[in-house]
Structures are given as C-alpha cells and as structure tokens.
C-alpha cells in the first residue's frame, strides 16, 4: 500500500486437510477471472492439491476439515505450533460439518456401516477450535471464493477482517427471490450468517445454515414461526443438525 507508505509481502501460506472432502481448498484454485492476481498474493509453501512441494515455513495455515482420528490431533497441533495465523477453513473446520452427523449414532454402528468387516479407528467428530486455538474462521460449504479473496487481500494489506453479522435474508431479498417459506419450505436463511450471496436460495434450495448462526439470532422466534407456518419441526431439526452449526441453540430448547 504505497499510498500509505508501507509495502505488502506475499503471504506464506499452507493449506491442510483433515476429515473433509477437500472441496473448500479446491475453491482456492477457482474463479479464474482473478486467479492469477490471487495467486500472486500468496507464497504457497504447502498445499497438497496443487503442488507436490512441501515446506514447513508457512505463516498462515488454512485448515480444512474436522478432527475424527487421534493422529489428526497430533498433526493439527504441529500446524498450530508453526502458524502465526491459523484459519478454520470451511464448515467442517468451523463447526464439525456434515461429518458430525456421525455423532448422533452409536460409534460401532457407524464404523460397521461404512467399513464393514474391516473397521478403522474413529473418534467422535470435533471442530478445529475444540482442539487448538483458532485465529479466524471462514465458514461455508464450500467457502465462498469471493469472501476468501476479500479476506486474503485484507490480511495482505494489513486490514482488519470481519464477516457479515446479519442473516442470509438480507442478501436473499436483494436478489428479489421468492421467500422459500412462501413456497412451503423450512429455510434457515433468517438465522444463518450472510456472506454467501444467498446462492442456495437463489437456486430455490433452502438454506441449510452452512455458514453458522448470524450474530444475536432470535432462535426462539424462528422456531415459533416454523410452527406458525404449519411447517414440520422435524424438517427444521434435520436442517439445523445438517452442519452441526446450531447445537448451542437446540440445547436451549430441550
């Protein structure tokens, strides 16, 4: 930022995956129209999906996935030790994500269902912040490349970073979408953090809350309105559970 009298350095970055689909990391290589400039901001030291070179001198660690094995705990702790900034990257890292559905079933049953007669060691799913300190979270399933770009640019230029505090409804209404409640569906838009540009609801798919709760949500009123609209509370529960983002609120209710 020469006009302010300081220079910007490339960010030494490492990208790591734990229990996940690695789709969020793939987002880093998406959005071709700004990809060259985006990569120009980074000095990629460690990123399995795009380079076979591995270095351990990264400053910023993007950590994708949740923690479901004991060896993952060790690996994560080593990353925490090296990284100056550790970012929980994607809904699995931030909240446990889809993987957490497993936590609602008996462990043996899960292992048997998936691995049959050759069982593997597996623990209840934890989010990254359950294991190590997280400096910043970028939620989403997958993360929005546009938001990642904004955050990376902010870090590179020494600007403070933040996520929208308001819910998806704001962005959804800005797209002139028909409210999914009017179409008879339970949508988590009113309680989910915006920043995705309402991509699902614009495609007429109900929001499942992958970005986690917006700030200061009114969960009680939300639950009431689902009932008042004559919609299924079971459907709501199922959606709330999908990414494991709303556990704290669901506990309040029971």
């Amino acid at each position, binding site marked *: 930022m020469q006009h302010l009298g300081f220079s910007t350095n490339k960010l030494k970055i490492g990208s790591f995956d734990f229990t996940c689909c690695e789709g969020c990391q793939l987002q880093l290589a998406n959005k071709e129209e700004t990809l060259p400039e985006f990569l120009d901001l980074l000095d990629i030291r460690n990123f399995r999906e795009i380079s076979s070179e591995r270095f351990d001198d990264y400053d910023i660690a993007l950590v994708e996935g949740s923690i479901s094995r004991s060896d993952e705990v060790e690996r994560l702790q080593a990353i925490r030790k090296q990284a100056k900034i550790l970012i929980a990257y994607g809904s699995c890292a931030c909240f446990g994500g889809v993987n957490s559905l497993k936590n609602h079933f008996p462990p043996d049953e899960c292992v048997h269902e998936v691995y049959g007669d050759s069982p593997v060691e597996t623990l209840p799913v934890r989010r990254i912040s359950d294991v190590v300190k997280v400096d910043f979270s970028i939620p989403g399933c997958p993360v929005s490349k546009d938001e990642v770009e904004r955050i990376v640019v902010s870090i590179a230029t020494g600007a403070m970073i933040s996520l929208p505090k308001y819910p998806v*409804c704001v962005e959804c209404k800005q797209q002139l979408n028909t409210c999914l409640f009017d179409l008879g569906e339970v949508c988590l838009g009113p309680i989910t953090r915006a920043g995705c540009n309402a991509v699902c609801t614009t495609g007429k798919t109900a929001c499942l809350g992958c970005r986690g709760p917006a700030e200061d949500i009114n969960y009680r009123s939300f639950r009431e309105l689902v009932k008042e609209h004559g919609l299924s509370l079971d459907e709501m529960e199922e959606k709330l559970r999908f990414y494991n983002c709303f556990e704290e609120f669901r506990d309040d209710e029971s």
Partner: protein
Amino acid sequence: MIYKVISKEEFSRFVDALIRENCSYGPREVDTDRHGNPVYQFRRVHSADEVAFDYTATHSSAKHLMLPYREELSRFRFSEGDWEQDIEYRVKPRLLVGLRPCDISALNILDDVLLNGKFPSPYYLAQRKNTFIIGMDHLPLPDCFCQSLNHHTVTKGFNLFCSDIGDSYYLSVNSSKALTYLKNFAIGDPTHEDDCRLIERRKLIKQSFQTEVEVTGLPSFLDIEFDSPIWQKWGDKCLNCGTCAMVCPTCYCYDTSERIDTDLEGASRQKQLYSCNLVDFAEVAGGHNFRPGNGDRLKYRYYHHYRGFAENANQQICVGCNRCGRACLADINPKDVINDLRMEKESCMICVSPSPPRT
C-alpha cells in the same frame, strides 16, 4: 398535466413500442406460492406481453431501481505512492411501467429525503432523472393501508399515469416526453362521460380499503411511548433479518465499505442498503453497540417511518403498502404494532376517565 383517453388495446401497443425500444422494467409473475397465488416482482421485461398489468402487488418494491441494493460509489486507482478517485453518475435511460400510486409516492418521499437537503445525492438523481415512469391505479388488497397515509392517489413523480375506466385508460400526462410518444397512437380528449367514469373509479378505489391504520397524532404518541413495553414485546418476535427494510419502498439507510482489488492496484468504495433492524446498525469501532436490543432496533424502524426525523422535516415516510407486513416471517406488521401502541395508551388503567370504546 394534461388528460387524454386511450383504448386498452392501443395502450398495449403504446407500451409495447416503448418497452421494445428501451431497457424496461415492469411487474412480472415469477413464482406461484404454496397457496397457489402468483408471486410478482419488478423485473426486466422485453415486450408488453411479459408485463402482468393486472398484478396484485410485487413482493419487493421498485426501490432497487433507484437505490440499488449494492452500488459502487467510487473507485480508487493506486499508483506510485498516490491515488486517483473516479466517480461516475451516469445511468442508462430506463422505462418503469406499472407502478402503483403508493410506489410513486414512495419515490416522491425519497426525492424529498435524498434531493432536497444540503447534500443532494447525485447517484439517486442520476437514476431518477433517467427513469420514465408509467403508473397505473389499482383496487387495494385487503391489507393495503395507503389511504390511511393519504398515498392512495398521487399527483406528481411520474411521466404518465393510467386510471382504469373500463375499456380504456384515463391518462394523466405529466411530461412532454410522454405526450410526444403518445402522439404516435390513437388518443382522444376525455369526454364528459370519461370524466364521470374516472370519478366513479376513484370512488370505488376509495371505498375498497379494508384496512385502516390510525396515524393521526402518531408522532407524539411515539415520543411518549419511547420506553413502552410494547417494543420489547415485538422485539422478542423480530428476527433481525432486515427483510422489512429490503422490500420497503422507502427504507434508504445504508452501509458503506471499501474493498481493495485482488491485484492491489485499486479499490472500490461500495454502498449497500442496510436495515436498522440489523444487529450492528449502531455498532461503532471497538465494539460498543448503541442499540443492542431487538426491541430498540425495531422501534427505530417505526420511528423513522411514523415519526420521521428532523433532517427530513419530521415527515412520515411509510406509504402504507404493507410489503413489510406481508414479508415478515415473524408476522410483525405496522397495523398491529401501531394498534398495540395506541391500545397501550388508550386502555391505560390509571387514567381518570375511561377509555373510549375501540371500534
């Protein structure tokens, strides 16, 4: 203003010619809701066939065409330790067809707020000046209450206004541009009979309102009831989702932010329409929130709409379209909130005289 009459078929040809020649927006059917009712929105139209002239109400207002939800205010170009700022106010001309009187009133209110102060908004001015507006009257929906705020008729703020008088439209021509276009079509001067039919039409509209919201004296009510428990009550229902402000034809509060380009060679200063219901509306750097409660924030939306602010001459900015009431998932609507507020006062138990019976 001059008055003309045009048959509905000829009107359709006239609108079609304008739509085809210009970037045009009008009410379109975009969905069918769970009860089988059509959903309308102001969207781009390419011929008169696409316009739902007999639409009930659009879910969102046409505000976004004048005040885009997101808008770039200016750009910075960085170079060698310095920068240049670029600002553009250019807007391509557009046609906006099918606006109801309340929506045109809403634009007149925005004109007052955004153009008549010490600091007029050039961005809004550019949009407004480049929009050709054709308004159309309609019979109110059961929950419309624009009559209570005197916005069921409109006398300015449009280029052309059409009143339905049976098989033809009674036209109020409010710009020479409109008359120039109309001259290419079969129009006539209103006969005495046409005048009578117009008066009948207006009577019918006036008598069709089913919802009334008593707004007289509301500003002083609101001042007295600043600490009323009803704000807490409705605040407990409010989701802070901002839907009401987004669909509202007059909510204009906004947020600005700056974003540096990915190549670090420039930056963009952007505006986004905001809502006083959103949690960080009054939050300052460092984290202090001047309005931390749901009820406080909800109250402010009502204050802005029914009390008005000193800056815009304390005028009420609500036009009574009830879009916010229809869109609110938590079933918060102006009629109920205002009635509640009046009840609170009028049924007060410590008053020396009994309250008048509510009708």
